[in-house]
């Protein structure tokens, strides 16, 4: 396959899709490429917090200001992906007592909205919270489902005549003299080779941005900063809870969907494709969780995973376009490395024209980063087109912010579950609930599989949250495999491979947490899939991949 475009975006995370959406809205012919599924990298593996800015007010005021502004904007643009949980910064006995006052003052300076409430009031709202907290400061944190957000963005790119191509891996950057003119690579679904020529390439590959730059002959040092998170199997809190202290491991608990997520650790790793969740990280997060919620360890830890933050280390002086990263570069502790973004113009920086890179940054400010990047692209292409993403709604006007109860009302809307009294004369059975934990129905799966044509059950997980709840796909994986088989009429060996791969993928995140109920659950799952279904006796098309991101310890 060969095609040409004006703007080619590399990376299907928040930054990449944000840039593709922005560029398409400005009328550029736009293509975005992603080597995995949407949100394959850090966008799909973070704790789900839409930052109020509070976390950055002291160390990184610029980021704090941007977060506060973007938080308010995103609530309007992609409301159905955002739940307005609000956030607290609480001072536990383990936190410095004077930090809260510094925090309040810094919030004012950075225009980050904040209000102090009495600890008793905070405890009333969040009964499981540590009763020994001495301060409670309310901020505008929210919880954002990045899979939903990126799906909406991908839809918006397509609606603006742009293209998003998933599972397309770039293997070569094509240059003509000192100019980047296109990319070549492989469509991982079909094995087909592709070449795409572009007027300009926007490198938004996150933790992989350094590799892309290297293919173009530029040195960009992006340190993958591994952050480990653990999902607890219930919403222990309904508000995002931050520790009121300098950023540190395990300082935040975010309610996301039916679970709550504690995060994170922060260690630099050499390779964004190879890292493991270590026992010490799990122990540390469980211990920090107890500072926020004294009964933390009594709750079941459901799943652990790690994401890689793209932390940019500036190896060359910024040529003017990029913001100076605060916090100092080459820090050994990757937590001290900047979370700020940097825009790299490879023409002035490295003498390679035709490519810009956006590195670093965070999910909350993706729209802003995209705007800066496409502004710079316009300058390179000698055209003046105004950014409109600030005022363009991805969803119909009047769409409400997400609420937890929405899933139930959706279900009642599409099925007969709500029929009162039950209509016994109906011959059609109710639309079956396939994933009871996350309320995913048969009709949703069929529709999704038909639209995507993808038999990958893990994609159903990202898109519909299938198998993400307390049973971790113990019951729904078999049901979903049957539906995929019937809907796509694929070979049984292909579906068997998908089922085994999905089970392996679920296991990856459970393995670091094998104590208490999780081990019980494993024994049940093994019993179901090995004994009842004999999955190990099924013929498969290929070997199950064991991802290198599993624990090594």
């Amino acid at each position, binding site marked *: 396959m060969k095609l040409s475009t004006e703007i080619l975006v590399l990376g299907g995370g928040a930054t990449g899709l944000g840039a593709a959406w922005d560029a398409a809205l400005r009328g550029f012919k736009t293509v975005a490429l992603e080597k995995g599924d949407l949100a394959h990298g850090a966008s799909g593996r973070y704790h789900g917090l839409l930052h109020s800015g509070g976390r950055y007010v002291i160390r990184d005021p610029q980021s704090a200001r941007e977060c506060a502004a973007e938080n308010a904007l995103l609530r309007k643009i992609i409301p159905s992906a955002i739940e307005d949980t609000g956030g607290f910064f609480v001072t536990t006995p383990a936190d410095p007592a004077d930090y809260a006052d510094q925090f309040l003052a810094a919030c004012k300076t950075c225009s980050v909205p904040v209000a102090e409430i009495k600890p008793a009031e905070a405890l009333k709202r969040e009964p499981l919270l540590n009763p020994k907290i001495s301060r409670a400061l309310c901020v505008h944190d929210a919880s954002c489902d990045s899979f939903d957000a990126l799906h909406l963005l991908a839809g918006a790119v397509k609606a603006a005549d742009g293209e998003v191509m998933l599972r397309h891996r770039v293997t070569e950057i094509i240059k003509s003299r000192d100019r980047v003119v296109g990319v070549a690579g492989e469509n991982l679904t079909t094995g087909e080779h592709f070449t795409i020529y572009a007027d300009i390439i926007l490198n938004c590959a996150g933790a992989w941005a350094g590799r892309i730059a290297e293919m173009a002959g530029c040195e960009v040092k992006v340190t993958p900063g591994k952050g480990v998170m653990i999902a607890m199997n219930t919403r222990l809190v309904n508000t995002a809870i931050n520790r009121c202290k300098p950023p540190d491991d395990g300082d935040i608990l975010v309610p996301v969907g039916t679970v709550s997520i504690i995060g994170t650790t922060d260690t630099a790793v050499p390779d964004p494709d190879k890292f493991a969740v270590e*026992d010490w990280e799990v122990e540390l997060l*469980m211990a920090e969780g107890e500072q926020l919620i004294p009964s933390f*360890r009594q709750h079941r830890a459901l799943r652990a995973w790690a994401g890689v933050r793209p932390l940019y280390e500036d190896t060359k002086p910024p040529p003017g376009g990029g913001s100076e990263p605060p916090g100092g570069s080459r820090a050994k502790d990757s937590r001290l490395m900047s979370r700020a973004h940097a825009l790299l113009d490879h023409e002035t920086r490295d003498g390679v024209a035709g490519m810009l890179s956006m590195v670093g940054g965070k999910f909350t400010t993706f729209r802003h980063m995209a705007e800066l990047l496409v502004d710079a692209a316009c300058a390179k292409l000698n055209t003046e087109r105004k950014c409109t993403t600030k005022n363009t709604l991805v969803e119909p006007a009047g769409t409400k912010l997400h609420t937890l109860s929405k899933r139930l009302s959706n279900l009642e809307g599409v099925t*007969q*579950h709500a*029929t009162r009294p*039950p*209509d*016994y004369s*109906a*011959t*059609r*059975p*109710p639309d*079956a*609930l*396939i994933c009871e934990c996350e309320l995913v129905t*048969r009709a949703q799966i069929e529709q999704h599989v038909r639209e995507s044509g993808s038999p990958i059950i893990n994609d159903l997980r990202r898109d519909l949250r299938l198998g993400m709840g307390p049973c971790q796909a113990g*019951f729904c994986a*078999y*049901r979903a*495999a*049957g539906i995929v*088989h*019937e809907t796509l009429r694929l*070979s*049984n*060996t292909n579906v*068997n491979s998908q*089922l*085994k791969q999905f*089970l*392996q993928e679920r*296991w990856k995140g459970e*393995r670091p947490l*094998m*104590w*208490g109920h999780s*081990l*019980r659950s*494993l*024994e*049940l799952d*093994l*019993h179901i*899939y*090995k*004994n*009842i*279904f*004999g*999955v*190990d*006796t*099924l*013929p498969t098309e290929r070997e*199950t991949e*064991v991802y290198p991101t*599993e624990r090594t*310890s």
Partner: protein
Amino acid sequence: MAYDLLIIGAGLSGLFAGCLAARRGKKTLIIARGIGGTHVGTGTIGIASGDPSTLNTLLSTPEHPYSLVGRKALKAAIEQFKAICVEAGYPLHGEIGKNITLPTAAGGTRQTCLISKTMCAGDLNRRGPLALANLPGFRDFSAALAAANLSHVTLSREAAKSLSGTNANEAGIPTITLPLPHPPTHRDSYATDLALLFDLPGYRDELIAAWQPLLTDVPKRIGLPAVLGLEHAVEAKQHLDSALGVELFEIPILPPCVPGMRLFNLLRDDFQNHGGRLIIGPVVSGRIENGRAAVAADTNGRVKEYKAEAVILATGGFLNGGLVAEFDGKIRESVFGLPVPAPAKRSEWTSELFLGPHPFARFGLRVNKNMQPLNADGKPIASNLRAIGSILAGADRLSEGSREGIELGTAWRAVETVA
């Protein structure tokens, strides 16, 4: 009131031990936190998968429960269990040393030793073509996927040819859509919902009327999910088979497991009919005093001591709560706090592959030939205490296909030594 025998746990091993003791005239109490593993099982009795040499190997593997039980006791246990099932009107088919290969609900295969009559026609080594029934709207059985996979099962070429019809293998195993009259409209059905309907003769008459016209020109051996009645399964199968002119067979599906529940019910009834007492609900705690086991049960804060000459611990493995893995990397036996040796690092408990084999499967209590739990020095912890079933160390039940055989054999052996 003092008992001759107190059994903690109401799974297959606990109930069977209870039946054996009650049948010997012993005053027996079974006390359990909840219902045991029967409800998440397959309702079949696996002893050892593979050819007969596998069982011989296990019988001579030191520390394997089978080597402690011995062939003679294992055989006696199986015979007694079969006799109880016959008496209950739910005879099992099969014999020790011979495995039956059954289809799974995903279209894989599973070897097991004793199966209920409701599963017999599914024996994959039996001649004759078969079909699978799709029950529309019932989410726990995918006939299409199972049929597609079963068509690829590597049996003998003759058997494969025979399964997939008269002509060629390529035709594969067909599926037939058999709609259920009055599907529940207010929520999804579980296996138990359908089983309760199949128990009703009137409902079966409606099924027959609806299915009859759909069954011309299809193979006569028809597999369907295991929902053929909870209390009257044998009657339900006979009724449907003779009226429809087919041979139905059940395939175990996602829990709840109806065939397993039948085993629970028949063992419970047998135990109670022989004078046994069953209490389900309290939290049971035990302690060792002067070398003897003593048991108390806590029902919503009301604690009652139970006196018994002998105590059998049949609380199961991790899944059923007999063993508890702690965050700190220790493994605890849940009633008496007996020692359970295990590596200190949690990462050594499991395999990086989901399907294992996982080292934790072999964790459990070490016992001697009398089923007495042993301390680190290899001495019995309490003279009157026995442990049986899935709580015992030394077996990977899933890989060996030995779960139920161990349950029955160790129960038999323990009762032999105390009653």
